[in-house]
């Protein structure tokens, strides 16, 4: 009787999740498997015209990617963006969160809205504005530099400065989101901890180092992983602002994948790029989890 009851319950459970499972199967698992298979073929524009011209090429796409200068350029650019832009973005977010959370601060709500505005504005629109800001002769930034007596920088035209310019823009665009998460984390820290440490004679820095940072641990993990995954998917900023240039100094892995897949219709190659990126992001996430766990022990 009990057993039968359990069976019915199990069946009912499966029935309830079936629609969700079907959706995930059709719209997620299916395409992922299909693109994995695609990455072992040379499916391209000729194959769209005549499926018979698609060849199974095994791991050739992968080996070709690894010997392609373009890919290594894109990988290097993407890593620069992740390693420099990621921590910078998290630090700016934390700084902003601390600022808008200070008890003495006035108009907290207004500042939160202001800092969050870039996140909700259309990227293409603000990218155009930033392109004007970065303009070497008429841009506000270079005019400011000139006032300080510094030589103007051709931000988006100089291969050395284009990636820093993209990073700066991206940090400005995205820090508001993480700031909100940090604000939520900060508000969860009990006030008593600060009071107790104050009584024990801890200064502002010691309170930050030994109360705020440990208490924000889980928040850091979440923000870190989400930011890293987001940073690896760098696409729209270079696509709109530089189209990967100058001299391919801002081409990212996703931009390379987009070009190969939807511009040159080398679908097999593009699918292989996507899976390599998947492996990299997976490895990065595992590493962060491992580090965090080690720290907590």
């Amino acid at each position: 009787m009990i057993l039968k009851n359990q069976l019915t319950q199990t069946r009912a459970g499966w029935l309830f999740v079936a629609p969700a499972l079907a959706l995930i199967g059709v719209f997620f698992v299916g395409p992922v498997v299909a693109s994995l298979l695609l990455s072992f073929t040379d499916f391209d524009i000729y194959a769209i015209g005549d499926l018979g011209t698609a060849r199974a090429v095994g791991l050739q796409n992968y080996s070709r990617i690894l010997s392609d200068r373009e890919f290594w350029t894109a990988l290097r650019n993407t890593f620069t963006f992740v390693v420099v832009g990621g921590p910078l973005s998290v630090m700016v977010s934390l700084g902003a969160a601390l600022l808008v959370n200070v008890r003495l601060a006035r108009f907290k709500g207004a500042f939160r809205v202001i800092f969050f505005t870039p996140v909700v504005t259309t990227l293409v629109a603000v990218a155009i504005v930033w392109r004007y800001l970065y303009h070497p002769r008429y841009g506000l930034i270079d005019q400011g530099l000139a006032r300080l007596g510094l030589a103007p920088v051709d931000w988006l035209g100089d291969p050395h400065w284009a990636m820093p310019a993209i990073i700066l823009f991206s940090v400005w665009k995205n820090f508001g989101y993480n700031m909100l998460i940090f604000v939520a984390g900060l508000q969860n820290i009990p006030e008593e901890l600060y009071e107790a440490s104050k009584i024990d004679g801890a200064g502002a820095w010691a309170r930050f180092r030994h109360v705020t940072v440990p208490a924000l641990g889980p928040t850091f993990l979440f923000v870190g992983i989400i930011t890293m995954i987001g940073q690896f998917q760098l696409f729209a900023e270079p696509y709109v602002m530089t189209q990967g240039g100058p001299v391919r100094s801002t081409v990212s892995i996703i931009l390379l994948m987009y070009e190969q897949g939807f511009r040159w219709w080398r679908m097999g190659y593009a699918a292989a790029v996507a899976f390599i990126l998947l492996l990299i992001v997976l490895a990065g996430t595992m590493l962060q989890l491992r580090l965090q766990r080690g720290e907590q022990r």
Partner: protein
Amino acid sequence: MKSVTEGGAAGFGFTGPRVPDRARAQVHGRFQRRLAPRGCFVLASLLAVVSCEPADREITTVRFWAMGREGEVVQELVRDFERENPEIKVEVQQIPWSAAHEKLLTAHVGHATPDVAQLGNTWIAEFEALRALEPLGPWVARSSTVTPEGFFPGIWATNVVDGEPYGVPWYVDTRLIFYRKDILASAGYQTVPDSWDEWLAAMRAIKRRVGPDRFAILLPLNEWTQPMILGLQAGSPLLRNGGTRGAFGGPEFRRAFAFYVDLYREGLAPPLSNTEVANLYQEFERGYFAMYITGPWNLGEFRRRLRPELQDAWGTAPLPGPTGAASGLSMAGGSSLVLFRDSKRKPAAWRLVEFLSRPDQQARFYHLCGDLPARQEAWRDTALAADEEMRAFQIQLGRVAPWPMVPEWEEIAIRLQDETERAVRGRTPPDSALGELDRSVDRMLEKRRWLLSRRPRVRPGAVGGRG
């Protein structure tokens, strides 16, 4: 992601250097033209219905896709076509340039191609490779209106793949020099010289005159047309072995490339991409550059946007060549009309192609939107013949050459652009940039070599057309 992609493509020309300028030019005058044709269209169809004698005559509906501005103005020509051919109704669908390529491709995959469409001639080889296009050889052979001799030969050639025509040129596009007469005159030149040596001397003279902050010529680094055109002028085939390997390391292209890269090295041209030039027309007014290589759509833009007092100070000139005027080739661009293989109304669609190719309709089309007629006869039109800036275009159109008609061309061209930029910015010596270019082009063409090697076995006797 989707909206970002579309917005980006519309504004920044990911589909090639030609599109954004055109798109910008096409925004004007959209509104005033929108309403008028509709009303007339309804009236015309009413007339067509009324004048139609028996009701049992069957009406064929031809679906016609046209891009951007052309898609708007062609409605007016289509109205007359329907009046002449009451048994045919034409449904014009207007497609923005930025979405055109993807839309055509998805239509082909989904078996939803129109009967007839406007196609940029850079895309013809690609859509032929997809086996989407109807071979037009037999249609042209039977036609009394569409005769290859009537068109500019260099333009007709861009529609021919493996000996078979797949498109009929509709309007043409080429590149030549727009220049500031006053700046050239101040450096001692009445017009742009017609050989490379003198051209270079003129640019040096201008540079000496205008100083370090201004330049003799603007050659945006994110355009592949200029290095390609110079290569064609020097006699390079660009690709060799039937379009299966790169020929950029050959002596002809090397010569052109060295000439081109030196223009930046000497400071005659600024190493900029055109996204870095905030407002081209203002910069031309300010004399930031004295020459600029661009296409016919800028004639209207220069007339509209430059200050009135500068209107007499600019002109157009055919491109100089390595050994004088005759070698001053330019590229053969433009749009063609194509029929789709899947169409079930090809005869009616062909009638429309023939109608739009008539010299009188070509001249009318020019008056409607400023696109240059692909038919030489249409150039006898008085307005065209009398236009001073237009004369350079007519001369230039007699000296155009096609680039290799392979589906991979655009990808190759972008690689050319990247390697050119690398060399200009001093990242690699010009010769090793070209070596690298040939290597990557050979890699891109691997599939094509494989297809060609097996073609005789798969389709015996399929020389030229693949139908």
